[in-house]
């Protein structure tokens, strides 16, 4: 099992105080108790260079983040970011829009992208300070937890 999972890292991203922005972190928190002990699960604020440092020598990373694309709240999309950049990710437009999409592209530019880099995006509704997760996002968080666990145990079996 160790060989199969030791090189996999799961990172849940977001700001815990900003409503649905915490969706990725909620996935990580719920996964921590349920994945095999040799599998690393981390919560992160999502700053790009911190993520890059976490990628390190990992063979595979699974990232979960909140999204704001205009889709219905709770919509989950899955991207294989080792194949192509995240859609609509543009760089340098904002002063501080320096997060997941930039981390992945920076890693790609520097030849440091893990062999597999899968991103789950959970569409949020409210990002207000102090808000809890929206009901649809709660449901989506559990769904993503289940999908990741399925993938993990499929590999162990």
């Amino acid at each position, binding site marked *: 099992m160790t060989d199969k999972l030791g090189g996999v890292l799961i990172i849940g991203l977001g700001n815990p*105080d900003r409503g649905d922005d915490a969706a990725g972190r909620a996935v990580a928190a719920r996964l921590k108790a349920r994945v095999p002990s040799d599998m690393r699960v981390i919560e992160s604020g999502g700053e790009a260079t911190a993520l890059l440092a976490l990628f390190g020598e990992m063979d595979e990373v699974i990232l979960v983040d*909140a999204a704001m694309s205009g889709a219905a709240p709770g919509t989950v999309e899955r991207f294989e970011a080792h194949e192509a950049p995240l859609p609509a990710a543009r760089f*340098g437009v904002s*002063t501080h*829009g*320096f997060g997941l999409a930039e981390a992945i592209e920076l890693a790609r530019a520097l030849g440091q992208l893990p062999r597999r880099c899968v991103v789950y995006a959970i569409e949020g509704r409210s990002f207000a300070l102090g808000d809890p997760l929206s009901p649809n996002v709660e449901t989506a968080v559990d769904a993503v937890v289940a999908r990741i666990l399925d993938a993990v145990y499929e590999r162990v079996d």
Partner: protein
Amino acid sequence: MARKTIKVDYLARVEGEGALSVTIRDGRVTHAELRIFEPPRFFEAFLRGRAFSEAPDITARICGICPVAYQMSAVHAMEDALGVKITKPIRDLRRLLYCGEWIESHTLHIYMLHAPDFLGYPGAVEMARDHGDIVKRGLDLKKTGNALMSLIGGREIHPINVRVGGFYKAPLKRELATLNESLKRARDQALETVRWVAGFDFPDCRRDYELVALSHPDEYALNEGRIVSNRGLNIGASEYDGHFGESHVAHSNALQSRTRDGGAYLVGPLARFALNFEQLTPLARDAAKQAGIDSPCANPYQSIVVRAVETLYACDEALRIIAGYEEPDRAFEPVEPKAGLGFAATEAPRGMLYHRYRLDDDGAILEAQIVPPTSQNQATIEQDLTVFINDWVDLPDEALKHRCEQTVRNYDPCISCATHFLDLRVDRG
């Protein structure tokens, strides 16, 4: 602005919102407005009723980039309210922790956010494709800052080891010594960084700012000192509210800080460098001179060089502190809750960060006031835009917008406290 926030960042780090609008009439900038979003307002309310001991952990959540600054201003203000005196080893450790944050925060801004402006790249990713080794140097330098924060703070993001009175656990001398090698490498990298950014082309823009920073006779002030200015101000933190005030401005939910006579002022690297140059180490002073940066430096576009000099200083200072560190007998001083009023200002990477707390008999927080550096710089940023952008009004919209963003980036506006002004409007009438 053709693009909206929503479309630009598919996976949004929604930590702050803001907008910048510039009005141009008859070829001159007549008005510039920077709207920023301010989590401190939320946290001030959130802190009321909480125990004094919770302030460091709660305020650390305000900013993912400078949690230590919030913790340091919080613990010093609480210790002021509760009459706690800390020991020298604790003081040293706090300073060392702050050095870690300066290294990581300054390096992030220099390499990832600001340098691309000067080298003509839209962002760090494009810069990394052409200058991979330089970006790797920046990442390695930043990692040393993070290692320092992890070792002393317990964690690099939102350190958990800081408490009122000291630390939950003090590191051993031999634990700190493990950082020497990477800090020496970081010091070399910081020196290379100074030389690298000193070679950029800077617009010839100067203004006569009111510069405000903490100042201490024996050291480049981080945690402790008087609040001084180049206009003769010299006060303690408890007098801050008498000399500076926050007021609502029509275009922003945020409060804007000004001096009591209504003037804009500037905090951060340029202010510290001007007011505390003599307290830098010889290595940092020489590097600045060789880089052609005089103190005071009145060109905000050169703040990137001053940040590099301060990063060099932080590496140098961290090595000095580690060499002289003596393990404390106890990791924290005992703290008895009581009613009180406490004030503190410390130097966040972006500039002075002021906290004030009023506590009840049980040490519960009755009032909290937090004035982040970005809201203190906001009025100055707007003035910079109004003055400097005049030289560039004939540029096409996109180029002009880029100049505006670059001008705001001179101040390294805090990711959480003031960001994402994707919504940038130029009104040419």
